[in-house]
């Protein structure tokens, strides 16, 4: 035990750091969210959030999270299954699939803002080339949110792919041979062997990405600004235009959602 205490001592700086820079500010944000300009306790900040359409903002955040997760999961499964096979150029392809990770979020955001511009955008250019009607990508909330989902998925599919790939690698090959002998084709092998064995990894990917997706900030800020607002962009908008107390209230609502996801993650992590 004495020895363990010594090792624990080594981790102390990290624990102190995390306490000072993660836990203290989180509680501080909760505290600030209940204060007014005069430093008195109030619930007004939360009441005022309704004026800023907080329900719609929460809904938008959930839509983006669910939509982006579905796109990333679909693409990630496809790419990861390709990478478990042997083919010519596999190495080049696996290098290629990791490239978006090296592109900064802000750069991805700017590039996609050129792609989805209403006038002079490359997506519309492509539609025009095919003699299809062009689209106003910001004409309503849902199309705007779709633009955010697509852009975010480009940047983050590699992470989902990496997690799913490490899961697929852990599935014993024998299971596939056995399934083949029983006459299962590639699709049935995927549905009956890959998916059930991958369940845990899919859950991990979904929760990790889900947390990040709730925190998505730079992409929506560049692509759609504050209309429609997400929880992060609303908090930032309030931070730069109103008081720290009001913006803290918006941030705390975000924190509440994330806390649920964190608890889910720890529960799931216990079974890892």
């Amino acid at each position, binding site marked *: 035990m004495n020895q363990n205490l010594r090792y624990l001592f080594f981790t102390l700086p*990290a624990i102190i750091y*995390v306490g000072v820079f993660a836990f203290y500010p989180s509680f501080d944000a909760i505290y600030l969210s209940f204060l007014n300009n005069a430093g008195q306790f109030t619930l007004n900040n939360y009441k005022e959030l309704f004026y800023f359409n907080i329900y719609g903002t929460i809904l938008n955040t959930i839509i983006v999270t669910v939509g982006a997760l579905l796109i990333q999961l679909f693409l990630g499964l496809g790419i990861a299954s390709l990478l478990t096979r042997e083919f010519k150029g596999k190495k080049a392809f696996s290098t290629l699939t990791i490239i978006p990770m090296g592109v900064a979020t*802000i750069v991805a955001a*700017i590039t996609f803002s050129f792609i989805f511009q209403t006038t002079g955008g490359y997506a519309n250019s492509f539609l025009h080339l095919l003699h299809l009607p062009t689209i106003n990508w910001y004409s309503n909330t849902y199309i705007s949110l779709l633009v955010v989902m697509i852009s975010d998925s480009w940047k983050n599919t590699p992470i989902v792919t990496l997690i799913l790939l490490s899961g697929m690698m852990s599935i014993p090959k024998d299971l596939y041979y056995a399934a083949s002998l029983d006459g299962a084709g590639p699709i049935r092998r995927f549905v009956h062997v890959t998916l059930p064995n991958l369940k845990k990894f899919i859950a991990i990917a979904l929760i990790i990405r889900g947390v990040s997706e709730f925190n998505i900030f730079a992409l929506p800020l560049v692509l759609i600004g504050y209309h429609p607002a997400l929880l992060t962009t609303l908090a930032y908008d309030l931070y730069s235009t109103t008081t720290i107390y009001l913006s803290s209230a918006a941030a705390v609502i975000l924190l509440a959602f994330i806390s649920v996801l964190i608890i889910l993650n720890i529960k799931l992590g216990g079974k890892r």
Partner: protein
Amino acid sequence: MKLSYIAVIIFSIYFLLPLYILVMIAFSPAKYTIESLYPPLTFKSFTLNNLVYAFTQYDFIHPFIKSLSVATLVGILGLVIGIPAGYGLSRLPGKIAYPLLVLLLVTNMVPGIVVAIPISAEFIRLHLFDSIPGLALVQELITLPLATFIMQGTFSAVPREIEYQARIDGASTLSYFKNVLIPTALPGIIAAFLISWMFSWDEFTYAIIISPIHPTLPVEIYVNITRGNELAAVAFSLVFTIPVIILTLFLQKYLKGEYLAGGVKA
């Protein structure tokens, strides 16, 4: 089998297309890109004028130096705190190490905006607002768990017998670290430094809140976009992205699912 090749080609186009467009905007005259109603999907003409104009007319060097200093400081700080933490965690029994790892993972999930708003208020009081050390301290929150995870993995691979041997030979903890542990684990330590560096280089949320007056490059790019200096933003983006793509490819084997699980933020 043919079908997988079609899939490979489609996915390859999907991953490369945005970069292709970025390069095209950077190196084509504006009339073929951002000024045209339906910009052509192929290169029409090549020019370096956009880049020359961007780098002579807009401030690149100050944000660049700020980004570079903050990222380097984040990397160093990650090693200073992360090496002992990773070592301690690799030697502690799972029963104690696991909750500590969860603690680190959890801090990584705390929303940047939640942490940044109260910290910005504290930092104004402490004169750390808009400063290089201030931003580095906050960004460390993203990279420390990641660096610790990598270090823990690397140190776990160093057999304990070597440590016992060194002790018998009379080495102090410090000299064991300096002469045995760190040299053996050097590739992992370098990877942890570079990955920390990379995440700080890309970081946006903390940077815009903690350091808005003298911004880092990502914030500077955003400021240029909002002011309508689109070509400057594109030129800066390109210069900003190339080193990170190279680093990413170089660090590919360290970018594993299990590490990233602890260290990725939007």
